């Protein structure tokens, strides 16, 4: 591990520049994606990637140059390019960063169970083949796929201020989906995939529930095919954690990103209905809503010791008892806005610069079991597993869809319904949060697919949540 570190340190020490500050962020990534579709092993997709980003600050202006050439000359050339650009952009620069503090921290961070070997290729294919074969024979089951993705990342951050930060992490993404078709409609039920990513090793595959899941997931796909459409109207909505993660992501996470509030993303990812002056003032949700930026759950996808600008990460309440307290803004955004934030300046790889991203954004557990949550609903619906998401560029008006719906009447779970969709407005939706599940309903989930930024970046984020109930939400089904 970190076998390139001594060489990299030497090369960093030899770099020459007139910049007042410079840093190097080296990333080495290897990965594999294995899948079996309808009992046929698909060819493995493997990858190896490494490169470095050099960032300079000259007279308060920052610029970067990312390079695949890690030789001493290659690194120096990149540093020179960044320095030249910073000098030439001075007349046009938006920001003067001369007074922004830089990190000089030195630390290592490791994923849990990193010392345990990951199952071999043969073992993975054996597991995938067994789960695929366990999907029952039924002519209505037209497609199914079982997969395991794994990425191993080593990152080294060095700066002229003396920072030396190393991270070694392994991310695992198990998944299964089954599609059923009756000649007119098709319904897909899934487990894991984009919803369940964690740090760790074989333990992640076990925690996901992939082993032995084939028949159950297939049965649910067939149940959906036979189910009526979700009836339209206002109902109490019980969202399970694998839909809560999307709800948190889109209507709390993105609107609280400080760079959006500062306008950086207005041309692409969008803006926010939240304003800088709302922090400390705005009642974002009901008193049951407690939202944290939490880098301390070891297996969660975006747990880390320091962000990609070298800021130390710690757990912070963003919303406490419904009151909005703190944005998702890294050191640069905090400096620009004059506000406290969190350590969430992150880049997806060596070839993209850090920007404000969600990391682990969680809802703290409440005090009700799932049975209690259901028992207190008179006329409602349970929805599970996101399949569709759409929200406006200010992250306010949304419509989300799930794979699985079950009506709730007089405190009891009733029949399965298909195409469960709901819509609402973020600014009001969280105020309708009426009950929060306890730790027995709490799940640690995450997705590798959060897109943002110019140039575009897709990054992993973690969301842990209990099941939650929202009062009187507009729900509806599909056409088929």
């Amino acid at each position, binding site marked *: 591990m970190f076998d390139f570190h001594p060489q990299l340190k030497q090369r960093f020490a030899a770099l020459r520049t007139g910049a007042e500050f410079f840093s190097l962020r080296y990333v080495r990534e290897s990965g594999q994606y294995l899948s079996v579709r309808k009992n*046929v*092993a*698909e*060819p*493995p997709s*493997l*990858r*190896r*990637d490494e490169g470095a980003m050099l960032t300079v600050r000259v007279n308060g202006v*920052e610029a*970067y*140059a*990312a*390079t*695949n*050439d*890690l*030789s001493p000359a*290659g690194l120096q050339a*990149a540093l020179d*390019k*960044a320095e030249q650009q910073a000098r030439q*952009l001075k007349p*046009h620069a*938006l*920001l003067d960063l001369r007074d922004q503090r830089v990190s000089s921290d030195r630390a290592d961070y490791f994923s849990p169970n990193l010392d345990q070997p990951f199952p071999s*290729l043969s073992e993975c294919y054996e597991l995938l083949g067994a789960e695929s074969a366990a999907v029952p024979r039924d002519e209505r089951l*037209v*497609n199914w796929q079982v997969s395991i993705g794994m990425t191993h990342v080593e990152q080294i951050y060095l700066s002229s201020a003396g920072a030396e930060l190393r991270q070694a992490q392994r991310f695992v993404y198990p998944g299964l989906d089954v*599609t059923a*078709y009756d000649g007119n*409609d098709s319904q897909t039920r899934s487990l894991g995939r984009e919803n369940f990513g964690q740090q760790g090793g074989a333990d992640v595959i076990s925690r996901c529930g992939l082993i032995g899941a084939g028949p159950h997931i297939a049965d649910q796909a067939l149940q959906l095919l036979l189910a009526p459409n979700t009836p339209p109207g206002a109902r109490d909505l019980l969202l399970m954690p694998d839909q809560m993660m999307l709800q948190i992501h889109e209507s709390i996470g993105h609107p609280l990103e400080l760079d959006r509030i*500062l*306008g*950086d993303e*207005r*041309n692409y990812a*969008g*803006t926010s209905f939240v304003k800088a002056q709302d922090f400390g003032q705005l009642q974002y949700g009901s008193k049951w809503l407690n939202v944290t930026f939490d880098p301390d759950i070891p297996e969660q996808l975006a747990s880390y010791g320091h962000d990609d600008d070298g800021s130390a990460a710690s757990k912070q309440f963003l919303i406490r008892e419904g009151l909005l307290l703190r944005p998702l803004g890294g050191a640069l955004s905090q400096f620009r806005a004059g506000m406290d934030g969190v350590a969430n300046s992150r880049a997806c790889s060596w*070839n993209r610069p850090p*920007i404000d991203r969600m990391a682990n954004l969680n809802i703290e557990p409440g005090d009700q079991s799932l049975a209690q949550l259901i028992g207190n609903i008179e006329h409602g619906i349970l929805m599970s597993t996101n399949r*569709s*998401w*759409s*929200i*406006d*560029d200010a992250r*306010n*008006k949304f*419509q989300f869809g799930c794979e699985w719906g079950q009506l709730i009447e007089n405190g009891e779970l009733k029949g399965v319904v298909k195409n469960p969709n709901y*819509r609402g*407005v973020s600014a009001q939706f969280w105020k309708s949060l009426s009950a929060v599940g306890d730790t027995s309903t709490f799940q640690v989930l995450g997705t590798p697919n959060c*897109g943002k930024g*110019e*140039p*575009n*970046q897709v990054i992993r984020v973690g969301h842990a949540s209990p099941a939650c109930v929202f009062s009187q939400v507009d729900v509806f089904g*599909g*056409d*088929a």
Partner: protein
Amino acid sequence: MTTYTTPANSQAASFKALVNGLREAIREPEQFTLSYAAESSAFVRFNHAKVRQAGQVQQASVGLKLINDGRHADLDITLSGAAEVDARRLADGLQQLRETLPLLPPDPYLLLNHNGWQSNNVQAHPLPDTEQVVGEITRAAEGLDLVGFYAAGPISRGFASSAGAFGWHQANSFNFDFSLFHANGQAVKASYAGHQWDSEGFARRFAQAREQLAFLGRPLRTLAPGQYRAYLAPAALEEIMSLLSWGGFSAQSIASKSSPLQKLYSGDHSFSPLVSLDEHVSGSLSPAFSGEGYPRSDLKLIVEGQAEAQLVSSRSAAEYGLTANGAGGGEAPSALNMAAGALPEADVLRQLGTGLYISNLWYLNYSDLPGARMTGMTRFATFWVENGQIQAPVSTMRFDDSAFSLLGSQLEALTQERELLLSASTYSQRATASALLPGAVVSRLTLTL
């Protein structure tokens, strides 16, 4: 200011050297394919008409597939640009794949292209100096709230196989994708993209956007949910096409019942006879070959509202008994071309009469995929029109409607003029996708929120 390192001819030579080395290293009966992707990019972000973040990225990678005894595996390797280092990385990669193949079962859907086809396309228009471009942009935006992104530089793609195929594609391009914001939060979206930066051309494009900005100052109109006549400008139609392209034309998605167009391909539904769609690779920015080694030709996907060709990768060809037609693994179009209609653009407002003029849509997804029912938001410059006159900007609204309605029973007219929309996407690398689309007048669009 910008120096785009590693000239294209040098990259082509480096790729050829890797290919030659690989041909020597391969042991009969092994076979290989090797794809190549590289770019040197200048990236500049703007906020409040100033430079928010700027940098340069130099990257190159190969995708190596090794085939032996009916088994195959793929490995992507980042290159360093140094011949010796890259030859060693490729040799290590080859060894990794050699050790991997015996662990795999034979793949019944392996289909190789044994043709030794050749393709070469090099476009080397000189690129503008980034400092000059930044100067022009900041001068044009003086006094305005501009936010945007400039990306420029050479892009290279290559392919070679042990069967003797060799393709090379290189193009210099730039894309300035920007928005102008009114103080009330409303904005106009525009772009200036191509191969050759022309200061007058940029100034004209910028002036058009600035003119639209004036309309946004009028008091906002808030609409109630309901059904409205609407004009979808080409950029708005592109959002609908992008969503439909996400599995819509894919042979695997159609066969596995996860295509939103499965009812079109089954013949159960159709679009309006006005709708004809091609994947028009020739003359587009996309390479004329796929990453898996098939030359790509133009395809008629929809003709007068009826489904025709699907996009077929080699794997789908083997699995479903179809003919591979150059689609990549994702089987998505990259050069979608929609036939023009008869409505002159100048008559759009008159044809619309009273309804919504929608410049852009945003964040589309499905409400009910098998029915191609989709939802999404208006974004940027959406206006309320009465009797052919723009009245007011409209606050952000959500629509929820089926593509079989919007492009079928409710499609009234397509414009004579079409707009070439070059993708500004830069996920992992700068995209080469494009779309040539008209605008569309629809007699009913359902707004829900």
